[in-house]
């Protein structure tokens, strides 16, 4: 088990290193010099040069890369070109919107998907299954930002149960903050819940056709008991994979949803930074998102080993 985790941890580190190189390179080769962009088209050559020196843009690429990475390890994400304030402060402020939003959505998605998928699998071929499958087909086809707009129209503009956008800071009460994240989280969760229900259903159906299920039935377990005691844990393995992948999707999907609801999250930050050529912010936020995704996948890998004893002895 320890060897398995260690190997995953090593591959996590390697992935992070490679990811940082890729992100840095993409931003490097992108056209447009941040300094001249910041100063506008009428700026003098020497003012631009001075700003470039101040931002550290005149150093060679390699040393800039290493100072960026070593800064990040220490928690120093550099200084924003546009706002001249530490990027880490900006991120800290925003992450308390984005992360809860993604987790909230993941929670909703899982809470819908598990019962729906299990129900559909037990009703396989019957009306209940067809209804769940039909609903999930729609759920997958609906673009989440459009669904978000419809939610706003219905629940904010017409029914006035929620506000149409904006975020209530956590200091003003956790429940109020959660309330302001509820519509965005539902909008994000719907397509994910649909996908996850389908995965849950097919994984369960697949598992139910295994020989050991027949063994369990021959022991005298009823159809329901077999699902709880034998099938579910085995079906969890593909489901976990999808939950891991969905986290990445939710972090990214949040960018667009944050636009719809005017939420001050990481998505909006990176989006603004891109349009303002605030590359240091872009690099850091993207790196942070990648870090989050890779870490979640690491956790999923460890969860595999908890679920499946066959993996524990591997490295």
């Amino acid at each position, binding site marked *: 088990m320890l060897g398995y985790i260690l190997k995953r941890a090593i591959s996590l580190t390697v992935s992070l290193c490679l990811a940082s190189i890729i992100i840095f390179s993409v931003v490097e080769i992108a056209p447009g010099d941040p300094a001249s962009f910041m100063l506008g088209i009428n700026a003098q050559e020497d003012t631009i040069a001075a700003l470039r020196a101040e931002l550290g843009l005149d150093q060679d690429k390699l040393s800039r890369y290493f100072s960026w990475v070593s800064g990040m390890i220490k928690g120093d994400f550099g200084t924003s070109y546009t706002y001249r304030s530490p990027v880490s402060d900006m991120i800290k402020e925003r992450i308390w919107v984005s992360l809860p939003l993604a987790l909230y959505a993941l929670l909703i998605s899982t809470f819908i998907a598990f019962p729906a998928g299990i129900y559909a699998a037990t009703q396989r071929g019957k009306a209940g299954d067809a209804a769940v499958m039909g609903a999930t087909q729609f759920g997958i086809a609906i673009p989440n930002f459009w669904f978000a707009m419809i939610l706003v129209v219905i629940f904010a503009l017409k029914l006035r149960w929620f506000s149409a956008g904006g975020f209530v800071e956590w200091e003003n009460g956790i429940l109020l903050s959660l309330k302001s994240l509820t519509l965005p989280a539902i909008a994000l969760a719907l397509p994910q819940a649909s996908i996850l229900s389908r995965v849950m259903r097919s994984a369960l159906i697949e598992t139910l056709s295994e*020989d050991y299920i027949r063994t369990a039935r021959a022991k005298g377990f009823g159809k329901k008991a077999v699902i709880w005691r034998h099938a579910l844990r085995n079906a969890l393995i593909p489901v976990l994979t999808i939950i891991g992948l969905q986290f990445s999707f939710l972090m990214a999907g949040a960018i667009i949803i944050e636009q719809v609801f005017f939420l001050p999250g990481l998505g909006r930050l990176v989006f603004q930074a891109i349009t303002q050529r605030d590359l240091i912010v872009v690099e850091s936020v993207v790196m942070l998102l990648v870090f989050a995704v890779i870490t979640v996948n690491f956790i999923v890998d460890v969860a595999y080993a908890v679920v499946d004893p066959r993996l524990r002895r*591997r490295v």
Partner: protein
Amino acid sequence: MSILSVENLSLKIGSESILNNISFKLGHGRILAITGESGSGKSMTALSITQLQPKYAKLEGKIFFKDQDITEKDEFELCKIRGAKIGMIFQEPMTALNPVKTVGDQIRETIVLHSEKNKKSADTETLDILERVGLSPATEVIKRYPHELSGGQRQRVVIGIAIALKPSIVIADEPTTALDVTTQAQILALLKRLVKEDNISLILITHDLAVVSDMADEIAIMQNGIIVEIDETQNLFRNMKHPYTRSLFAASGHSVDLPLAKRSTDLLLTIQNVTCRYRLARTKIFSKNDYFTAVSNVSFDIKNGERVGLVGESGCGKSTLTRAILGLEPIYEGVINVEDQDISKATLNTRKNIQVVFQDPYGSFNPRHKVSTLIKEPFYLIKDSLEVKNIESKIDNVLEDVGLSSADKNKYIHEFSGGQRQRIAIARALIIKPKLVIFDEAVSALDVTVRAQILDLIAQLAVEYGLSYLFISHDLAVIRSITDRCLVMKDGKIIEEGLTKKVLEQPQNSYTKTLIEAAPKLPSFQMEL
């Protein structure tokens, strides 16, 4: 009084009739064997008794367990019978156990499910059961997961589950088919002992008449969903009233009329000190690579016209050796020569001397190609334009040689039965007239009657085509009937070698002796037919 009585049982899936009006009785403490070839409906009979047949199957008839009709019971009552009163054992020990639960859990839950026992007392019982099925130390095994046990050990666990609550009946569906002969003998002995000790009635379902003859008090022979004959074992073998019983028996003990081969002293295949090894998955992250030596320092040769057998149980290295001879496996040490050419550096021209027939009649062909495309694939090895001419007539000839018609070349592979596919596989191997053919468990997946036909065909074609072959099999009876000389392999080494007759009748090595003793044998009063 009988404990189980099946009356006029019929089962249909869609419009297809799987079981047709079968009736039989099972007496207290008796062993009833149900035998037949694949598709005879024997497994479906087993599932129907506990009402575990597929949902879409339509069942008619009555099944009396003691005096209650099982077919009229609801799911709740059935669950109380299954596991407690009727235990079941299935064929595939590798998949019959839940991979994410310990074997202890899986035995214990049967006990807890059907009794009011708490976990602790169920635990002591579980330990007892593990000891009874010969898994010791039980305190150690109880914590193991299925993947940590061998196939035979897993089957012991499955047996443990089935007998845990001392049921009245145990139904064992091909319990040893997936196991090696030595393991099979142990498992059968265990099963026999346990049912006698607990006075359990056993229904043993198997395709293997030899297994049955040794175990059963009574035998039912099934064919196409019908019980064609059912009788006490002794009587059945003595009388064999039904022609199908006779043909099944004849095929099981079939001995091929192997013509004398033209012997020559020219070496066709020479294998010198060959070792093949695999890198094992590392168990510790910074440990050195571990290797598993699948074939260890093996040497032998095959002369022109020789028919050689290679026997061994699973994991003995025979598949790796086969693949090495075919040039599909890297050789770590040693040399394999075909006609004095090193196979690892072989050109197409050398390779055309060797062809192969594999075990699985279903996986051996690309399902998207027609038979003609499939069997002419080996022509890729021949660059000589003279030989490549007349391919069409060669396809016709070879198809007729293997007992098919030349019209079959325009069909797709799914239109053929398992036996016919194996004929096509032989046609593919023979079409370029190789000198050596390797038969890799080529008849193991076939039913006995088809197997007998294919073995006859191979013997006949070997003479017609002037072939040498290496016949790899786990089945001593097959090796006995179709080879002149044989090799016995164990743990990657050749442990015995000699004329087939001599090796099988006067084995020198103790392992060969065990192997021969473990193989189930048909009773010898067959001559009274």
